[in-house]
């Protein structure tokens, strides 16, 4: 009977890898189409207007004056106080001294005439189809919106930080001196009244595009084909594939190099992917344990009876 219970428990957890429409999976009925970002880094000019617009709109605090020396990137990464982050990657014009980066020297993008290449890319929360942060949140502060995005409610968050370690991208973060977890809301307040997120609105070159995810994916496929036809063999989509480890991203990217070059994990997997199996195994183990306890109990009782 205990084993039956464990199997039943596993079955009742959402079968994460099968669900492709996260809003439906979260119980929304008659919801609008899933909205997302397509960030085409090939037209990013590194102006950082997205970072500033995001902070202005969402009242995200300034987080320190530190010259990092990482090219023009003084933001370093996404965090509680940086919901958009523009990465700057300088790729040298001759074989790098560090053999680890030598692979990136191949100048095939068509933007590398002088031999040097300067990649820029605006990173953001991926709003995963299977969002581990949401799965692990004990308070329900993190929730799936009707638009398919993932949002933290700051008045519910208790600052446990489970989401921080659950995120496969290292996006969500706890704010120092505040204790709660913060990240991109995909401007839930703006998009739920038909406006576009602050970053996409301000992006001068349309590197950041906002819209229904299905449309963005089609657009991205066309852009990729165009670049490949133009000989930009390095171009690739990241987070576009609904069959990847997180079921595809709600915010996906067109890159010109390996994801690692941009500080993105090459093969992200939702950290709660194995949870049902783990539950099932834990259940089996518990049943086995309970069974053996019962057996030993029965055996001992039987012995005494004997």
């Amino acid at each position, binding site marked *: 009977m205990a084993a039956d219970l464990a199997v039943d428990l596993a079955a009742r957890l959402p079968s994460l890898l099968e669900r492709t429409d996260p809003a439906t999976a979260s119980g929304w009925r008659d919801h609008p189409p899933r909205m997302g970002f397509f960030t085409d880094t090939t*037209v990013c000019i590194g102006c950082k207007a997205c970072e500033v617009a995001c902070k202005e709109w969402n009242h995200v605090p300034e987080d*320190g004056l530190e010259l990092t*020396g990482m090219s*023009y990137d003084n933001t370093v990464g996404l965090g509680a106080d940086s919901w958009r982050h523009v990465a700057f990657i300088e790729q040298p014009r001759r074989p790098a001294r560090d053999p680890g980066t030598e692979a990136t020297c191949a100048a095939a993008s068509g933007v590398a*005439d002088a031999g040097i*290449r300067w990649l820029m890319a605006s990173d953001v929360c991926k709003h995963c189809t299977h969002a581990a942060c949401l799965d692990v949140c004990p308070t329900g502060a993190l929730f799936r919106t009707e638009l398919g995005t993932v949002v933290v409610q700051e008045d519910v968050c208790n600052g446990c930080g489970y989401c921080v370690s659950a995120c496969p991208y290292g996006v969500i973060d706890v704010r120092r001196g505040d204790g709660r977890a913060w990240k991109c809301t995909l401007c839930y307040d703006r998009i739920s009244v038909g406006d576009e997120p602050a970053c996409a609105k301000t992006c001068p070159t349309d590197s950041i595009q906002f819209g229904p995810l299905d449309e963005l994916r089609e657009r991205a496929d066309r852009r990729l084909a165009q670049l490949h036809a133009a000989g930009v063999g390095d171009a690739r989509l990241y987070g576009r594939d609904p069959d990847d480890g997180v079921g595809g991203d709600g915010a996906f990217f067109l890159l010109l190099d390996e994801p690692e070059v941009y500080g993105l994990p090459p093969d992200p997997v939702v950290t709660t992917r194995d949870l049902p199996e783990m539950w099932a195994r834990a259940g089996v183990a518990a049943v086995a344990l309970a069974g053996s306890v019962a057996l030993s109990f029965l055996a001992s009782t039987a012995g005494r009876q004997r």
Partner: protein
Amino acid sequence: MAECHPVGFQWVMEAKARGATVIHVDPRFTRTSAVADIHVPLRAGTDIAFLGGLINYVLANGRYFHDYVVAYTNGPTLIGESFEDTEDLDGVFSGLDVEKRRYDPASWQYENAEMPSPAAEAPAAEGNAHQLSVATAGRGESHGSGGAQVPPEPERDETMTHPRCAFQIVKRHYSRYTPEMVEQVCGVPKDLFLKVAETITSSSGRERTTAFCYAVGWTQHTVGVQYVRAAALLQLLLGNIGRPGGGILALRGHSSIQGSTDIPTLYNLLPGYIPMPHANQDENLEKFVEATATAKGYWADMRSYVVSLLKAWWGPAATAENDFCFDYLPRLTGDHSTYATVTAQLDGTCKGYLIAGENPAVGSANAKMQRLGMANLDWLVVRDFSLIESATWWKDGPEIESGELETADIKTEVFFFPAAAHTEKNGSFTNTQRMLQWHHAAVEPAGQARSELWFYYHLGRLIRERLAGSTDEMDRPLLDLTWDYPTEGPLAEPDAGAVLAEINGWDSDKEPLSSYGQLEDDGSTACGCWIYCGVFADGVNQAARRKPGGEQSWVAPEWGWAWPANRRIIYNRASADPDGRPWSERKAYVWWDEKSARWTGHDVPDFPPSTSPRYRPPEGARGAEALSGIDPAVMQGDGKFWLYVPTGIQDGPLPTHYEPQDSPFPNLLYGIQRNPVRQLVSRRHNRYHPSPSAPGSEVFPYAVTTYRLTEHHTAGGMSRWQPYLAELQPEMFCEVSPELAEERGLEHLGWATIITARGVIEARVLVTERIPPLRFPGRTVHQIGLPYHWGPNGYTRGDAANELAAIALDPNVHIQEVKAFSADIRPGRRPRGPGRAALVEEYSRRAGITPDTGMEVTGGR
């Protein structure tokens, strides 16, 4: 452009998406280079050599747009026999007066043109205690304002084979600018240069056009005007002026710099590019008009523009009897540009200074001279958002820290007024396309902050109240002003719309005018700026129109309003061939419609609407009637675009490569090192570096260029106080190549000290491949990149790059050379206290610098 004009750059990206090739020419690899198809790194200060190379390529290979050049430019025009080119005189033109450091342009004129240029007739401002070679009272700068005096129908050789026609002179002048020479001077490999040349020429002609964009990287040189002239010459040869997709676009450093020259904050211009009258020559309205109007084209109506302006300013007080108050206008007596003002402050002749929207203690060349000048004033007014360095130097500036100045000894009385931001006031921005876009106040300014309009209106009101009842004739110009703008709201903010209505102008019934063609010279019309006439047509603020591009034609005439007459491309007569047909269907823009016998097209034609392409003016015709059917340059006295400039420019009719004032490199093109008529101010704290061949030049071996970053704005007043911007670029830095870092022992993220004969600064080091060393035969030139945003105040602080720059100026517009100079760099932080000045002195001593160093007129290689 992506770096400093990211919003405008969206259109470049859009053009790129539609197949345009983007070429970026810059000493460093910037955010623009990152998305450009071709990046051309060149040595800072050598763009004329590069552009000259392109001009030579176009001419040597017959790639110019022959029909366009013959019909629309002064290429066929004959130049007088007495003209001698740099080819004849090893780098200088005829007419050079070495003593006075100026040219007499009399020999540059068209054949049989007796008319002297304004530059020739203006007396030199002699007797200045300082050594500014002030050739004229700023008339060079106002060139293009008023018509240049040339014969309306000069002699021409339509075959362009006459050895003295402008085309042949241009061809000879640039024949030495070969690809090999470009490689040696600019450090641009020959193959790369040829790739650029081929791309540009194959993207120009009947079917295609090429546009040039530039910013202060071209203008801030001792030959700045000629940089832009070189681009104009090239674009004319390629037929890229007056046509869609062509042109030369000046990218402005602020959102309404174009507006501030249209309705000028310049000392030598009146609104609409009417020159400021000169004290000695322009005694009355008639003489002024005579000297500035042309016989041909729209400057012929100068009197209407001036009289209407005077009527706008002085209303009923301006009558035919009193010359419409022409005598109320100020008069030029000499150079009163910004750097002449600084030297006048140091000399004690300039007593008061009003700074609005500028931060000269950080943003102007030789920041120390700026501060010392201000320390010698009676009063100083600063209007800004923040307590910028120009407002606080007297208590915490570098000279206080070093002990060179003591607060208690400074007699300057300093007033600070907080300023409103553009979001807090109504008004217009005029962009580089001459397009006015209205903005509306979103909130009231906080605290005591007020708009510029509020400040000047109420200042004028208070002064007039103080003067009321005065019988002193000197006060009449102020008391007679029409100073009656309605005010609104709790702050008594003047109605900006009422100001725009006055700029637009009205007739004698106070009905708004709709075009400058309606302006009269008899006082029956008033107009505050003739080129803006029509911006308030039908009593509607046309600048406030915001019809989306998708809902109108591709020219989008209903978005904002562009001067003149809402034309989006000026001189667009040139978009059609001499017969009035589009050069190609693909590039059709305006054309002659035979049926209606009128010019028509996608834009407002920039031509007399019913002048047929076959029209030839009768002898003695005036104004628009004197324009032949093939005279697209409607503002030029001869109706043609100028390859060769016979009058109006101080430093020669053709752009010529000269090295920057402080250059580690000899001029390889001529026997003369620098622009012979550059403006210099050799005085204590503003000494120059030795010529490259002179002993001591090795003390400053590196080339420096200064620039902006996307994250900050100019001298920082609008950005360094903003936490969200400060955190993105939190510290002053210098950019050096790995090779230079190795040569000088500089460490990434360590400190560097940079020294010139003017000053010393420190900066964090960014070692980057983006600022490559340039390899020349026999030597390598290292360049140092310096953003110029920082100063000692604000949320993010640092040393100002302009402590290093010299006051060395272009002779036409008095702009400072801060885009290319020389310096030394070494690891570590700069000295504190008195050691700071001592280090500069030690370097100067070592380089053997005297008041005469770098002052050579000719030679100096």
